[in-house]
């Protein structure tokens, strides 16, 4: 936005002030502007500037320079926004005026609105601390910090545990009498359903990021957010047995996504293809070469979805994600709507031959797949005797994929896997396929083709000749002008329900509820977030989609004339059904009321220990949120005494008014980035002011808690909160 304005203003200045100085052709010393400096050395030919001041040391003196400090903002615009035309960083906060929304405030670079928005795109929910960090550092520096933040994958032995390490820790704590290592492999002989639930607990811990002692977990919010986005691209799910009992495999798979979230997509593809969880999910685990005597040919499942969903998609794309109709993915836009398929049935059968010979490590027999077989935490192993060699059909052992021929036994492991993955990874489609997916998950449902194109070109080449650099791709997505400048009507997305829930937990400071009762009905569990099957109420949960097509498809057009007539999509609305909208609302109630600390201890006057002991693993959730900050603000506004809220002899209720404003302001900033609209505020205000006194049995602490609770609940279930612009 600033850029455009700057260009318009500066070109106007150049035209008026710095018009050509070459009209005079006299050989004598010429001083066109009579400022005592001859034209040959004058940095402003037509402006009298005897002092020749030139703040940015460019070719033009300040007098005729439209941008004295060369910071990308014109002098005129700098004056408009109150920044110094002569200093590129007016407030000296390290953020150049161009990137500084608050150029006169050395403590802030971004407005609350902008900082909040960035955090909606990059984390599982803005917290006040994060908002102020982003405001201080600016978008670029903050993203850079997140991209380089330590993770669980830098060193094996530190306090930052991987999802798998933490899952094992929780399993031992929650079920101490279970023999988790009956074999050398964790949970192998046990194959317990509860391990999937512990995996979910670890997911929440890393998403919420507020564990009181595991403080590093979830400190890498952007990495966790990108991992979740990748889990919706390289989909696996508990819906395929025995993954519903081998939760350690799921945790390890998620670790793989998180580890490579800022790595290279080709490396991720290589690990994904060899992952035991993917092998089980898309059934290339135990896949065998053709056997003509038995009339069998290789399983096509992984081959097909690897192409359709994980790499290239069904038809040729331009770099900008639109259909490629002229056979050149770098030239666009093109008219028409012809779709050219990327592969045919022969490519599928050829690729299915490659995907043979893989099996779980430590399996008792090739291809065994029941609960208690194999190791789900190490890559699958390759067995060449089960790998297709075309011996049965008398073939040459070569396959042709998308026009490229290679040997079925090529590569260091003789599996042909890497040759196949190289072809798919290097296909032009991979760039827009992956880029658009990540844009849609992080930023906006309907990115312009130009936005997709800019990110795709970074996928194609990160600027240093590397293809598939996800760190560069993520940075390009988040720093793109479309993500950072004012959002238009068609920009933005409805939040994924599970992310909306995570955001609520974060802003309410959710910590584990210490002392809930475990599976064995005896053990009290401490320090473990419990919310075991969120998809029941939210329509989604990590690694629990109904099929490999994820919770929603990216082309879901809601039944709404605005969207339908413009071909706009809103995938998340597919799972925000009549039912989940209501059950989400009820979860918000649980989070703001049932599991809210002040409600439990202050209103219900129950100890947290007693409350925890009533909660067992069979409950929907067990954690502890709080409204401490809001209640403190209400108390302050009430002059330090909550009884002032409803003093009947004070008819104007000044304390109640102040308290209502305080609680609205607080959650407006935290939940909506300060963007609550006036009518929204008016309605909320009216409710909080009128719904008073007797509604709370004249218990003023209850009143304060309910004011906070109702404010959070009504915001959290509103479109203002559920839509990310």
């Amino acid at each position: 936005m600033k850029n455009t304005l700057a260009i318009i203003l500066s070109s106007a200045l150049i035209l008026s002030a710095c018009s050509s100085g070459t009209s005079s052709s006299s050989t004598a010393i010429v001083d066109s502007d009579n400022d005592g400096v001859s034209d040959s050395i004058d940095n402003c030919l037509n402006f009298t500037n005897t002092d020749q001041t030139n703040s940015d040391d460019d070719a033009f003196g300040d007098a005729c320079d439209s941008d004295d400090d060369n910071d990308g903002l014109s002098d005129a615009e700098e004056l408009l926004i109150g920044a110094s035309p002569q200093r590129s960083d007016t407030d000296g906060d390290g953020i150049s005026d161009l990137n500084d929304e608050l150029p006169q405030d050395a403590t802030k670079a971004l407005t609350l609105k902008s900082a909040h928005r960035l955090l909606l795109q990059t984390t599982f929910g803005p917290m006040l601390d994060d908002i102020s960090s982003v405001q201080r550092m600016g978008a670029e520096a903050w993203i850079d910090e997140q991209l380089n933040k330590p993770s669980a994958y830098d060193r094996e032995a530190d306090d930052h545990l991987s999802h798998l390490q933490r899952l094992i820790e929780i399993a031992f704590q929650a079920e101490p009498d279970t023999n988790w290592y009956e074999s050398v492999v964790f949970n192998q002989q046990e194959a317990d359903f509860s391990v999937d639930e512990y995996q979910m607990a670890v997911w929440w811990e890393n998403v919420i990021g507020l564990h009181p002692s595991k403080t590093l977990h979830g400190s890498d919010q952007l990495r966790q957010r990108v991992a979740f986005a990748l889990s919706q691209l390289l989909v696996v799910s508990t819906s395929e047995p025995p993954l519903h009992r081998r939760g350690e495999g799921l945790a390890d798979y998620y670790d793989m996504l998180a580890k490579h979230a800022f790595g290279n997509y080709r490396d991720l593809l290589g690990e994904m293809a060899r992952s035991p969880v993917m092998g089980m999910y898309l059934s290339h685990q135990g896949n065998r070469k053709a056997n003509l005597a038995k009339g069998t040919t290789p399983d096509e499942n992984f081959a097909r979805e690897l192409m359709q969903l994980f790499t290239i998609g069904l038809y040729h794309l331009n770099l900008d994600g639109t259909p490629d109709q002229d056979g050149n993915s770098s030239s666009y836009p093109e008219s028409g709507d012809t779709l050219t398929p990327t592969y045919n049935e022969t490519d599928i059968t050829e690729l299915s031959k490659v995907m043979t010979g893989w099996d779980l490590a430590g399996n008792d027999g090739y291809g065994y797949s029941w609960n208690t077989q194999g190791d789900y935490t190490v890559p699958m192993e390759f067995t060449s005797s089960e790998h297709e060699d075309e011996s049965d059909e008398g073939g040459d052992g070569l396959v042709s994929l998308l026009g490229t021929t290679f040997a079925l036994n090529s590569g260091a492991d003789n599996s042909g896997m890497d040759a196949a993955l190289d072809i798919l990874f290097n296909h032009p489609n991979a760039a827009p396929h992956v880029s658009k997916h990540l844009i849609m998950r992080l930023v906006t449902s309907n990115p312009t083709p130009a936005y997709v194109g800019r990110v795709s070109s970074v996928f194609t080449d990160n600027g240093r000749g590397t293809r598939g650099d996800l760190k560069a791709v993520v940075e390009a997505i988040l720093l793109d002008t479309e993500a950072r400048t004012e959002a238009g009507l068609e920009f933005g997305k409805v939040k994924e329900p599970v992310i909306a829930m995570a955001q609520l937990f974060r802003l309410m400071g959710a910590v584990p509820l210490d002392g809930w009762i475990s599976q064995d009905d005896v053990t009290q569990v401490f320090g473990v977030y419990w919310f075991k099957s969120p998809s029941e109420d939210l329509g989604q949960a990590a690694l629990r989609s109904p099929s490999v097509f994820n919770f929603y498809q990216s082309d879901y057009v809601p039944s709404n004339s605005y969207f339908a007539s413009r071909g706009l999509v809103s995938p998340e609305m597919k799972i925000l059904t009549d039912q989940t909208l209501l059950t989400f609302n009820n979860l918000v109630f649980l989070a703001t009321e049932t599991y809210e600390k002040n409600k439990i201890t202050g209103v219900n006057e129950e100890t947290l220990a007693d409350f925890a002991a009533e909660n067992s693993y069979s409950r929907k959730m067990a954690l502890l949120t709080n409204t401490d900050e809001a209640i403190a603000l209400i108390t302050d506004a009430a002059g330090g005494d909550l009884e002032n809220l409803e003093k009947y002899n004070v008819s104007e209720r000044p304390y109640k008014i102040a308290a209502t404003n305080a609680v609205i302001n607080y959650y407006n900033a935290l939940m909506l980035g300060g963007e609550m609209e006036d009518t929204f505020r008016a309605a909320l205000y009216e409710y909080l002011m009128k719904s008073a006194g007797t509604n709370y049995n004249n218990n003023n602490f209850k009143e304060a808690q309910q004011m906070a609770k109702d404010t959070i609940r009504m915001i959290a279930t509103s479109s203002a909160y559920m839509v990310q612009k």
Partner: protein
Amino acid sequence: MSNNTLKNRRDFLKTLLAGGATGALGSVGQLALMREAMAATPAFSDYKAMVCVFMYGGNDSFNMLIPTGSDSKTGYNAYAESRGDLSVANTALPLGDGYLGRGSLNPYYDGGSDAAAYLKGNYPMLQGNGFDLGVNGVMPELAQLLSQNKASVVANVGNLVERVTRAGIKAEIARLPLFLFAHNHQQRALQTGQGDNLNDVGWAGRIADSWPEINNGSLMGLNISYAGSDRMLIGANSNPLVFSPGSPPEIYDMQNEEWSSHQDRIALYKALTGVSNTSATGDVSFDQSSTFTSSDPFKSLFSSASNRSLNIFELIDKAWNNHDIGYSSKDSYGNELFSVPSSSDLGLSGNIGGRLISQLESVAKMIDMGAKDAFQSGGYKRQIFMVSLGSFDTHSKQETEHPLLLRELSLGLSKFQTAMEELGHANKVTSFTMSDFGRTLGNNGDGTDHAWGAHHLVMGGDGANNAGNLMGGQMLGKLPDVTIDGADDYSHKGRIIPTTAQDQLNASLCRWFGIDDALMPTIFPNLGNFVTSSGDLNSAYLDGLFA
């Protein structure tokens, strides 16, 4: 109404939907215009419902209904040769009287092994009627339904734009559906009712669009899904209700009519979704000036959805709780009608999930409520339901996973049919199956891959085959050549080219449902491609599906 009039109305609608009118008229004005344009909702006097059972993943119907004949191309030997170790035995199993509970002989039981039960044999129930097709042993209830003329089979149905042949495909001149063999696109095309259109709204959605006043304009609308928000029921201007099975949830803290705090919250909630509202107690009241309406399309999309959610459950919760159904009928095990049998009941080692059964239980109750107008619309006449069962994508472990799916399908259909009979709705309700596609006749070692044509089921009626009701006990369509590389193979893996279009089957159901000839081309635009008598749309329907 002539086609022409209809087309003009559709065009008019498209103009409206293009957004030009949205701003000026607002949604209410737009709706009024829309209704004027489409004031064609028939005045039905009777109640009818269609129930789609969608099997996600691609059901292997060739192991659900086994060819038992002796023909060298379409018969059992050809099937067994193609299927190899995954073929179901051509052994006739005894069905008995259909009772499977304690003291009965379980015809498919084979040592408790799911795989052995799956492959053990079949019920040749249709042979008496001249059809060489047996029902998989794990589906005794389906066999019973077929023998009692309460269900029929439509052979080799699939997604087609027009009829195609192997020769035409090889010569690359056949008009094929878009992206054959890809799950999502095949589901989509079957649901748009056009093999060559992935972008249109659903065919049942178009019915809802065409009948805006159906059910007296009830908030319940025409379409209800227990299968998520999938394309079939979505219209350009109508949105299916999407529920989970079981008792509808009640919203916490915002429903009690006697509590003013609940009423106040509801009023606020409505004010924040743009609906002016006043609490029943009058404690808070929001006039238009203090309600929040956003010009942001995403926000108004979400607001209207959440407002509808609140209203719909307010309507349903009361009606649902006041509408008790105590079935006296039992299921095939002699248990409560909609109970889910345990694995020991079933004689299997695996469990059936029960998800389809619970969805059908909810549909049965919804139908009873609809037919009896429990929603007090004053005229509740038509409903389309969608339920689903997933995990049919049996690339691997087919012989242990598919039997459990077929077992649940058989039980679910039978329980639902029994419920409809007990409630007196059997002749008013027709159920039918759909699935992404069929599966390869060839096997991949322990499963089958994506293919095309498949057999499907239609269920309903009271078994008397009276005029106007489902004609049960028959097979419509044509059994395919099931040899690999045979006349009906797309290429060389036994991906069978369909001979009947799903659109033909669905259109035949819709004709029974009350779609008139003029509207039909709007609902199934490609139907005309399947006429056998030029220019006569009637020749595209499946003759004899209904008596």
